């Protein structure tokens, strides 16, 4: 069925962008975290997306069509921020405290692009619904 594939593809896009938005909110919430439960600074989470074969209504994969899926969530390898705070109990010998490596600017840019892409997927889904209903009124 044509439009069920289209709506499924849009749904995979919404799920993927939703995962990105979740990662962004986690990063922003932990932007000032010093240590996590394992004693190391919080590292920014990044969602890796990959194209995946599109299926319609549980049927076989559709030729020439691609949905998207979350390949994995990786921790950023950027160096943690070092803040001079000799009074802190987490400070090292030189008086620096290691904080998370979250860049709030990166997080905001990611949030804006992810939410725009989410809206585009939502519009696609809506268009699929409109066209399917239109077909029923022929």
């Amino acid at each position, binding site marked *: 069925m044509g439009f069920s594939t289209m*709506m499924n593809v849009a749904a995979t896009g919404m799920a*993927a962008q939703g995962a990105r938005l979740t990662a962004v909110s986690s990063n922003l919430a932990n932007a000032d975290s010093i240590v996590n439960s394992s004693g190391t600074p919080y590292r920014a989470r990044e969602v890796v997306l990959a*194209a995946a074969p599109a299926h319609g209504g549980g049927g076989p994969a559709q030729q020439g069509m691609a*949905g998207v899926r979350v390949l994995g969530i990786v921790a950023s390898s950027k160096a943690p921020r070092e803040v001079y705070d000799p009074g802190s109990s987490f400070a090292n010998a030189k008086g620096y405290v290691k904080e998370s490596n979250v860049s709030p600017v990166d997080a905001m840019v990611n949030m804006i692009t992810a939410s725009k*892409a989410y809206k*585009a*997927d939502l*519009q696609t889904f809506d268009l*699929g619904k409109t*066209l399917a209903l239109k077909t029923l009124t022929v």
Partner: protein
Amino acid sequence: MTSLLGAALDFYRGALDARAYRQQVLAGDIANASTPGFKAVDVNFKRALALAEKHGPPNSLLLRVDNSRQIEAAGKSNGLGSAVEYQRGVSASLDGNTVDMDREQVQSGENGVAYEAAASFLGGQVNLLLTAIRGNGTRGGG
């Protein structure tokens, strides 16, 4: 289709198939707007329409048989997959993705309107045939 009624409606079936297929491909592009390395595709509509007319409707409904006297319905593709082409003349972003979101949304909207237009014309054609079948002035058995 070979029947008279089928011939009158077959063109619209092909047009709707090709438009719906293009809509799915564009949906795939939009879903992959942030996938690294994804290359945007589009449907060569002229070719897709020709293929849809040539191959007839796709059949994704499979009927299995366990007796030679039963009628088998094998899966059949309408071959539209071969009308998919990579978009040319688009600039790639740093991660190698070539989806231009503005273009995709414009094309998607335009294609949606074209689909609705084809559906409207099909409805008009059906009404035309019904008028011809009923005849003039004898509607309702009067």
